[in-house]
């Protein structure tokens, strides 16, 4: 106790009042933020400045802002295409809508929400968010076996990049300040779209952001033709193992039936790739048939493409896993016609309201 007794004066000797400068500075910060938020809401500004939600997945990050813009411009969104890069590069919403409109006369407002490398578990999180946020009439989940396979490269990284972001946590009902601020401050979302201002790639990123497609579709322009001699089938074809987490993700997507019409769509795979499947093309088709039997009784159709030979050799990207722009056009036209036929036959409810009523 002797150690604690001392005749020294106390170290802290503050006179009050103190800290007025700090209080004044905080007030100025608050005023600046309020003014900036007001400016960000002006139509002239809000139409021009992109927004983002602060996720490490750049595609997801920007897509939310673009979809918000599309929903605002068109008065709502009829359908969403969900999946990985095979969807991002493979479904052109404009072509689908044109084919659909040619058959039905109805305009279809759709958005391609393909996220690079996303597997079914990530897509389940996205599907739940997007259905709640935009209430589309149709949710199309396009997938290949990669979406359901175990140990897929980058699958887990993308999951955490998206799901762990503060805004996503806030959307799931987990309170956090950053998520709340992103959700409520448009000016903050504007800044987040430009938050890589210090990266060497900023100029290119900014160009891409300004020229981002309003329907989310990113065409794959082939730089050289497909060469079968150098293309190797991925491991999820040669040695497919169903991942329980991704299977659960698929079940969660299907469980959204009721809140929206869910449609499962097998994305095209080249014939030669099917040959490397464990039991050949027949085994591959049997697997999708099993999926169909699992989900169709619940009102969720599964449309398969592998037996149809829709895509010719020059419609594939050089990796033979994605469609190039011409392949995507062929596939998207087919999809639009199929949707129109399904609506006409009563298999699917009409995803778009009558133009004169809805808009």
């Amino acid at each position, binding site marked *: 106790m002797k*150690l604690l007794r001392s005749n020294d*004066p106390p170290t802290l000797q*503050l006179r009050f009042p103190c800290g007025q400068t700090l209080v004044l500075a905080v007030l*100025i910060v608050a005023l600046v933020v309020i003014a900036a938020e007001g400016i960000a809401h002006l139509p002239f500004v809000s139409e021009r400045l992109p927004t983002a939600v*602060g996720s490490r997945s750049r595609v997801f990050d920007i897509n939310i802002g673009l979809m918000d813009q599309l929903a605002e411009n068109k008065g709502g969104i009829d359908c969403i295409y969900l999946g990985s890069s095979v969807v991002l590069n493979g479904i052109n919403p404009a072509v689908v809508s044109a084919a659909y409109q040619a058959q039905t006369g109805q305009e279809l407002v759709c958005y391609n929400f393909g996220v690079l490398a996303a597997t079914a578990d990530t897509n389940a999180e996205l599907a739940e968010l997007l259905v709640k946020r935009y209430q589309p009439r149709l949710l199309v989940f396009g997938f290949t076996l990669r979406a359901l396979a175990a140990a897929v490269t980058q699958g887990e990284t993308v999951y955490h990049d998206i799901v762990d972001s503060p805004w996503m946590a806030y959307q799931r009902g987990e309170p956090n300040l950053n998520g709340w601020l992103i959700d409520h401050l448009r000016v903050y979302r504007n800044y987040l779209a430009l*938050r890589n201002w210090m*990266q*060497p790639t900023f100029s290119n990123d900014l160009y891409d952001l300004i020229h981002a497609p309003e329907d989310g579709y990113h065409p794959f322009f082939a730089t050289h033709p497909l060469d079968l001699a150098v293309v190797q089938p991925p491991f999820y074809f040669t040695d497919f193992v169903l991942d329980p987490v991704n299977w659960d993700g698929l079940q969660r997507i299907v469980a959204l039936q009721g809140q929206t019409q869910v449609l499962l769509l097998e994305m095209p795979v080249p014939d030669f790739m099917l040959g490397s499947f464990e039991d050949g093309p027949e085994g591959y088709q049997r697997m999708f048939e099993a999926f169909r039997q699992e989900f169709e009784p619940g009102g969720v159709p599964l449309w398969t493409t592998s037996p149809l030979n829709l895509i010719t050799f020059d419609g594939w990207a050089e990796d033979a896993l994605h469609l190039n722009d011409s392949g995507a056009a062929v596939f998207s036209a087919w999809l639009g016609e199929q949707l129109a036929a399904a609506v006409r036959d009563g298999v699917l409810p009409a995803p778009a309201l009558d133009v004169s009523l809805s808009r």
Partner: protein
Amino acid sequence: MTITSLDFALFAALVLAVYYLLPRRPQNVLLLVASYLFYGTWSWDYAAVLAVLTGLDFVAAWGLARPAWPRQRRRALLWAVIALNLAALGWFKYAGFFVGDLATTLDDWGIHAGAGGLDTVLPVGMSFYVLGAISYLVDVYRRQVPPARDPVAFALYMAYFPKLLSGPIERARTFLPRLAAPRRVDNETLARSLTLIMTGLVRKMVIADPLNTMLPPDVFAYPARFGPLELITWLLVYAFALYNDFAGYTSIVRGVSGLFGIELASNFNVPYFARSFTEFWNRWHSTLSLWLRDYIYFPTSRALLRRNPSRANVPNLILPPMLTMLASGVWHGTGWHMLLWGALHGGYLVGERLLSFGRPVVPSAQRPRWRQVMAAGLVCGLVVLAWVPFRMEIGTALDYWRALFDWSNLQRPSYRPWFLLLPGLWIDYMHYRAADEWVFLRWPRLVQAALLALAILALLLVTRADSGAPFVYQGF
């Protein structure tokens, strides 16, 4: 735990809360415990190395101060303890480099010796606290400072957490009396400390980190791919990022230490405005410069002057600055490029002495204004050019210098760094013009508040941006 992390802010706040309730002596005990806890968050192995060296130096100092011992014995002890300190530093810092070089040479001769088992990692801060220890031992030997009686105070001199990772390199003769004196944190100390912290945060997080992030990944690996205007821009970016990074760090830790009522030495004073190389080294990392001056430059110079006490002693014009700067290069890191950097600065200093040899000494401030500006531009330019071998291996450095003069490839440089370089220069100019780093505290309250608001907003924005560069000087 890094200095700019929220964890560190909470840690410092917790230590401060307890600290203010205690009298001075238990305050030192608290700071020592906190310092080792802080170091433990980096590595408990590092803390063990520090504790062993602290014990060794504390005991050795008593031997060095024994009046009964003859001078030769004390000198032998001094060299032995310095050697032990340097051996520890050398082992961790240079073993991998020299063994790696030896292995390469043997490989060239066809002998595959390998360098297994020598993957040593330098304990963070060791380069700094070893210099502090050596200065203490030499000062005790020279009887300029008595040996520390209080083991807690001495251990705190070695381990005090605000200065542990990257200095400033304090001297025992000034730091130990501060630890023995009562401390006072009043409104003025608080304002000055918070100003230092805020300035440091802005320098580090708003200026240095973004500048470092802007650097193209291959500019210092493949300089020939860039045009001279781009190379000049990126070299300036590197130079100002390095400066703001270290000056920012020093400013933060001085501010934090000020909250404990313990003043730390200033390390930076607007170095790029220096009008001579001597002035540059008084303004850049000055605690290291003073250490090198007192323990390498002066002893070398004294030894040379003893042989020939004339102003025209040419070896005395050349050897002390060259040896000092080579030692600075070795201290900064392994690799021959660091020696080249040191030799360049040694050459600058020698050139400056030779040019002014035989002329009357005119202080820089008394020269015509245009000459001051020209001299500052020349010194800044040559210093920035010397950062090239500081940053990259000799071969790449030569490529970089060569590409700087290849005017066949005139690509337009990025303008973005200037949004950060100019505010940084503005802060420097304000400090330089007022010769006072607390100049902002003399401004009207509303202007102060607006400036603080701007700093807060800038910090908020950069923390939400994609960045995250470590303090560059923690690597040394």
